[in-house]
């Protein structure tokens, strides 16, 4: 992760010290661990949430033969 931080340091021109690079790298490593369980969830058929809508209760299924 330190190498990734160093690359950003050059690209953005942050002028981070080695000590600061350590701090950022540690935070990024901690975040990667935090996010790991997200990929263990079965998300088959689940699309991203983009807006909260009023929940509409499912209408009861129509009985066969009725229209």
């Amino acid at each position, binding site marked *: 992760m330190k190498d990734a931080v160093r690359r950003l340091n050059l690209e*953005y021109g942050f002028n981070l010290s080695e000590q*600061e690079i350590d701090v950022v790298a540690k*935070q990024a490593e901690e*975040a990667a661990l*935090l996010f790991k369980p*997200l990929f263990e969830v079965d998300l088959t058929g689940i*699309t991203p949430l983009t*807006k909260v809508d009023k*929940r509409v209760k499912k209408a009861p299924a129509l009985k066969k033969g009725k229209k």
Partner: protein
Amino acid sequence: MKALELAELTISEIAPLIRKKQISPLELTKSYLDRIKKLNPVLNAYLTITEEQAIAAARRAEREIARGNYRGPLHGIPFSIKDNIATKGVTTTAGSKILSDWVPDFDASVVERLKEAGAIILGKTNMHEWAKGSNSINPFYGTSYNPWDTTRIPGGSSGGSAVAVAASLCVASLGTDSAGSVRNPASLCGTVGLKPTLGRISTFGGVAGTGGYTVNHFGILAKTVKDCALVLSHVAGYDPKDPLSSDEPVSDYSKPMGIPIKGIKIGIIKGGYFAESLTSEVGRAFEEALKTLKSLGMRIQEITIPHMNLVPALQAASTRPEANSDHEHYLRTRPRDYSPGLLYGLIAGLLIPAPVYVTAQRIRRLLCQEFDTAFEKVQVIAAPTLFSTAPAIEDCNRGYVEADGKRVNLADRAGNFLTRYTIPFNVTGLPTISVRCGFSSSGLPIGMQISAAPFQEGRLFQVGHAYERAAGWYKRNPQL
């Protein structure tokens, strides 16, 4: 009437007096401005006081009311606005050094609506830098102090707004809440704090980089539940300037108050999410609050949210990349104008892979479905707003508090521990209100949050108001 007595009133008490011309909006505004002049040097709630504009607006309100043009319950009522909400012609810093001299040439839609309702804007309130934290210890503008104990934080990021309301430096305030930034300071300062449903209030005019998109809400801080309802009725609703705002109809939110709550089911989430580091004093106050609700006829039921423990990861995975999207320009041009801690966090955020963000948005939908299922069994969900009362400023600076003989770190892998209890209602966008539910042995306020299904704000007000009146905690004011 003495100035202090005026200052301790609520909107629902003041409004009829203004309408009947028994209180002058001008005198009321001057009374608050005098109190701000006296107490703001001690509390640092306001960054900008808009005295001249406030007096002009109050004069205008007085003239209109005298001519019989009363606009409604917010007419002549003094408000404050968090400093990450754009105000035309008034500096809007977002608590940052970078925007220290930004003067917007437009009002946020919510400010426009307040002004249309005749409200008086007294000024802009202090906050955590870029709203990225919840202690309101601001390296550029100084700390806002908790009016119940000035050695303690007020919470945040809308810390100045909560201080202003609690200390009667305004009647109500607008804040923003992307991780608890309205409810957290409301709880720690003993005010009511409302975060409505995601999209219920337009966020047009919110400073980019102070809350992201998927979990950010504008909210209301006031002294009572009824006041929150009155304000929401005037500021909610679709706004073409904010595509994420909802076109759900806005109702008169003051109507449900007073309707008995007997038979309403209240859900308590099983599994220990809200037990993490819960202090005994807050736990006891919450249990007592549940007893009060039961005595009013509510029924308590345990509910399960299977993916509850992923909430901190969802919050971080959503807000960090969104923050980076907004901060990209300043990270390249003015990185050293952020406080070091915030800068390091933003740089670390640049290393979050895109699939993390998208996966989080998918799990948010899953979590919302789990809450939907829970709301088929109960009408509201209750939880403590925070694990503890207001930490000391010194504790925040050293990074941990000691409570019940245990050390609790205020930051962990997931980020800010002070927001652990509030973020479930950000990632789901559910309407949630924090009400005062007791005091610690040292006299610090404690908050309980009540949540409902999307766009069921009326239910929150019904239950919150009934609890507030039965418990009576709202009557206490800080001694200043």
